[in-house]
C-alpha cells in the first residue's frame, strides 16, 4: 500500500512540471500583456515600455520561465502584476469561498443524485426512469451560466426568496475571520447570519452541482441496475429477505464502489465549474479571480492558481484511488 502511494506521489511531480510549462506557454501566447490591463486606454508606448521593463516582461520568455520556476521552488507563488498583491495571500483569502461552494455543490449533487439514481433503478424502463434520465440529460446539457442566471431570475428577481449574488448580506456586518462564512457566523454565534450564508449558498450550489448531479444519478442508476441483476441478489430475494434488506445489504453495498470513484472525480469538474458559477453569482472565490486574471493577462495569478488547482485535483484523485484500493484489494495488485 505504501509503495503504491509513493509511486503515485512521485508520478505527480512530472505531471505538475509539464503542466507548469504548458500553462506558462499558454498564458504568454495569449495576445497582449498585462501592461494593457494596468494602463488601459491611458497607455502610451513610453508608459508601456517602462512598465514592461519594471515588471521584467522585456526579458526573453525562457528567462522569465526559469525565474518563475525558481520562485515556485522557493515556495513563492509570485505577485499579481495588476494589483501588486502577493498571489499566495490572495489565494488563501479566496480559497475558502471556493471550498465552501464546492462542498455545498457536492452535497447537493450527492444528496439528490444518489436517491434519484436509486429511484430510477428501482423502476427501470418506465416513465419514472425516463423522467430521471431527462433531468440528468438537462443537468449535463444546460450551460452553467444559463442555469445560474435563470435561477437568479426565478428565485431572486421574481419570487424574491433567495439572494442572487455574493456570499453574505453585507448589511449583517459579519466579522470575517476564516473567510468560511458559515464558520465565521458560528464563531460569531449569530444564527441569523449563518442562515443568511446558507441561503446565499443555495442557488450557486444548485448551478454548480447540476452537472455532477446528472453524472452521479446516471452512474448510481447503472451501478444499482448492474448489481440488482446479480445472482446473489436473486438468491437473497429467494431467501425471503425483505426488499429493504436486499437493497441496503446486498445491492447498495456493492453498488457504492463505482459511485465513490465518480464522486471523487467530480471534484475536478466542480473546481472547473466554479470558475463560471463564481463569476455569475459574484461569488468571491478563486474561480472568479482566475477569470479576471486571464482577462487582465495577470500571468502569475493564472499560472500559480491553476497549478494549485491541478495539485488539489491530483491529491483528491490520489485519496479516491487509495480509498478505492482499500475497498477493493484487486486494484492494489492490478
Amino acid at each position, binding site marked *: 500500500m505504501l509503495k503504491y502511494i509513493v509511486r503515485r506521489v512521485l508520478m505527480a511531480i512530472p505531471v505538475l512540471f509539464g503542466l507548469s510549462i504548458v500553462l506558462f506557454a499558454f498564458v504568454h501566447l495569449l*495576445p*497582449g500583456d498585462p*501592461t*494593457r*490591463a494596468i*494602463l*488601459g*486606454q*491611458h*497607455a502610451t*508606448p513610453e*508608459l508601456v515600455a*517602462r512598465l514592461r521593463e*519594471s515588471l521584467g516582461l522585456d526579458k526573453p520568455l525562457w528567462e522569465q520561465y526559469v525565474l518563475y520556476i525558481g520562485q515556485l521552488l522557493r515556495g513563492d507563488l509570485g505577485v499579481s502584476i495588476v*494589483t*501588486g*498583491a502577493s498571489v499566495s495571500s490572495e489565494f488563501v*483569502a*479566496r480559497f475558502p469561498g471556493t471550498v465552501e461552494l464546492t462542498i455545498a455543490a457536492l452535497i*447537493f449533487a450527492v444528496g*439528490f443524485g444518489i436517491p434519484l439514481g436509486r429511484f430510477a433503478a428501482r423502476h427501470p424502463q418506465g416513465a419514472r426512469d425516463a*423522467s430521471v434520465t*431527462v*433531468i440528468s440529460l*438537462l443537468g449535463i446539457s*444546460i450551460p452553467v451560466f444559463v442555469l445560474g*442566471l435563470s*435561477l*437568479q*431570475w*426565478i*428565485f*431572486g*428577481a*421574481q419570487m*424574491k*426568496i*433567495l*439572494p*442572487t*449574488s*455574493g456570499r453574505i448580506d*453585507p*448589511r449583517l*456586518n459579519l466579522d*470575517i475571520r476564516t473567510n468560511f462564512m458559515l464558520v465565521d457566523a458560528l464563531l460569531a454565534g449569530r444564527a*441569523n447570519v449563518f*442562515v*443568511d450564508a*446558507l*441561503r446565499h449558498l*443555495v442557488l450557486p450550489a*444548485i448551478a454548480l452541482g447540476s452537472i455532477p448531479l446528472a453524472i452521479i444519478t446516471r452512474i448510481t442508476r447503472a451501478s444499482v441496475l448492474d448489481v440488482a441483476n446479480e445472482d446473489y441478489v436473486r438468491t437473497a430475494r429467494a431467501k425471503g429477505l425483505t426488499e429493504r434488506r436486499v437493497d441496503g445489504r446486498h445491492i447498495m453495498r456493492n453498488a457504492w464502489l463505482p459511485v465513490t470513484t465518480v464522486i471523487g472525480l467530480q471534484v475536478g469538474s466542480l473546481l472547473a465549474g466554479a470558475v463560471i458559477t463564481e*463569476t455569475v*453569482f*459574484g461569488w*468571491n472565490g478563486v474561480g472568479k*479571480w482566475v477569470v*479576471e486574471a486571464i482577462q487582465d*493577462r495577470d500571468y502569475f495569478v493564472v499560472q500559480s492558481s491553476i497549478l494549485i488547482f491541478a495539485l488539489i485535483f491530483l491529491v483528491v484523485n490520489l485519496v479516491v484511488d487509495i480509498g478505492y484500493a482499500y475497498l477493493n484489494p484487486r486494484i492494489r495488485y492490478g
Partner: protein
Amino acid sequence: MKRTRLGALLVAAGMLVAACGGAATPAPSAAPSAEASQAPSASAAQSVAPSAAAVKEGGTLVVAIPGDIKRTDSALVDDGNTAYVALNVMESLVGLAPGTTNKVVDLLAASHQVSADGLTYTFKLRSGVKFHDGTSLDAAAVKYNYDRWISFPKELQAYSYYAGAVFGGFGADSNVKSVAAPDSSTVVITLRSPSSTFLLTQTLPQFGIASPTALKAGKADNTETDVSKILFAQGGPPAMVGTGPFKFDKWVKGQEVDLVKNADYWNKDGVAHLDKLVFKPIADETAILNGLESGDIDLAQKVSPVDVATIKTKPALQVIDRGASCNLAHVGINQVYANHIPAPANAKQIMTNLKIRQAIMYAIDRQALIDAFYAGLATPADNWMPLDTQYAKPLNLPTYDPVKAKALIAESGIAAADLTIDFYYPSDVTRPYMPDPKGIFEAIQTNLEAVGFTVRPHTDTWSPTYLDNEYAGKYEVFLIGWTCDWAGPDNFLKTAFFGYVNGKPSTEFGYKNDVLNKTMNDALAATDDATAKTLWEKAQDLIAADLPTVPLVNSTPPAVAQAYVKGFVGAGNLTELMNSVWINKP
C-alpha cells in the same frame, strides 16, 4: 422538458430553503413612495436635497460597481472603480460641486488664489479638519502628499498615471516646481509653466490628501518601491486615511469594500446619513439586474442600456439620470492608413479627402443609434467633447442627410469603385459610450452602404488587440471613444485625441495639424481664463473644419436604485458622493 427540470429544481431549492430554517427574506419595499422619482437634470443637487425633517438616518447602502478596486491608495490607481470608492473617503484641496462635471469648489481649501502669471497657487486651508486617524490637516500634511506624488520612485510611476499625466512627469519633469507651507494653514504650489486646467485636475480623488502619519505607517512614504509591500495600498492597516464623509473600514478583495460614516466630518452639513456603505463588484449586467430586483443591491452604478426600459416598468426601482455626459463615442479615422486587407482592392487613401469624411458624418443617422442602442440616453455629439466640458461650444457639425452625403461623394472625385472602407469594431466589450459595438457598427454599415460606400467589417478583442492596433494605426475606420478623466478640453482634444505624441501626429488618427497642436498647447498654458477660452475655441474651430473623426454621441448611462434610496446625486463623470444618500424604509 424545461418544466420538468424547473419543477425539480423548485422542489430541490424549496427543500434546501426549508432546511435552512425558513429564513426571513429581505422584503424589497414594493410600494414606491410619492417622492420616488428624482428630477433628472444636471442641476440635480438642489432638487434632491430633502428637507431636514424627512431624512432618515442610519442604515447600510449596498452599491454594485462593475469591478473590484485595484488598491486602497488613491494616488496609486488609475481605474474608475477605485476612484468611485475613494472619492467618498479622500478629499482634495478643491472638489467638484455635486452633480456637476466641471464646477470647481473649494474643499479642504477655504479659499485659493492664482497669481497673475498663472504660476503660483496659494491655498488657505480650512481649520479644524481632522484625518480619519485623528491627526490634524495642516499645510505640512498637504505638502507631504504633493511631495510624495511628485517624487514617486520609478517602480511606482506606472501605478500613478494621474500624477504623471497631470503634472507632465515626475521629479524634474513635473510641472509642479515646488510646494511650500509658509504657515500651518497656507499652501503655495508653484508651477513651472501655467496650466489652465490645473485646478480642475486637482479635484480628482487621485489628488486626495492622505494623513502623513498613516502614509508613513503604511509604508507609503516612497521608501518602499514594491507596490505589493505598501500596506497603505493593499488594504492596510492603515489604508485610505483621508478626511472625507466616510472612513475606510475594510476591503475583502473580490467581494466588497466597506466604508463607515465619519461622524466627525468637518462639514457639519455634509455628515453622512448612512452608517455604512458597501461597494460590491459585480461584472455581469444580468446579475446586477437580478440583484436589483431581488433587493440584494440598493444602487447600481451601471446597468445595461437594454435593461433600462424593463427597469422603468418596476415600481420598486428608479432610474436616475446623471445629467451632463462626460464621454464621447466617435468613428475613428486614420488618414494615413495604407494597410488595406485584402490589398489591393482599395489601395487609395480616401480618408485624406475631407469631403469623404464629411460624407460619412452626413450618412450616419445618429438619433437612430441613440434610440436603438442607448435607450434614448444619449445626445448626438456636436463637438469632440460634451458641451458641458470646460470651454466647449456647439460646432454645428453635419447631421443626418444622405442626399448631402451622396453629393459630397460625387464632389470628392473619388471613383465609386474606390469607396471601400475597412471598418473595425471591438467584439467583446461594452463601454459607457458604446453599449453594443457590433450593433452600432451594423447600423453604421447600413447607413454608409446606403450612400454608396462598401464596408468591409473587421473585429478584434478589445483588450489588448483592438486597443493596441487602433493606437498603432492599423485600422482605417474604427469605433472608439473616451470617458473623461476630468471635464476639461485638454483631456478630450489633446490627451485622448489630437495632441501630438513626441512632437508628431498620433499614430492612432494620423491627423497632422501643426497650428492646432500649437493652439492647444498655448491654450493649456494660458494665464487667464479669457485667453484660455479664446484659444480653446479656436482649437475647436480648427478641428471642426478638418473633421478628422466623426463624433457620434455623448451618452449618459443612468444609475439605478431601489425606490427607497433618496438623495443620490448623479454626475456624468461619476464623481458621486454618497453622504447625501439616505434610506427611506419604514
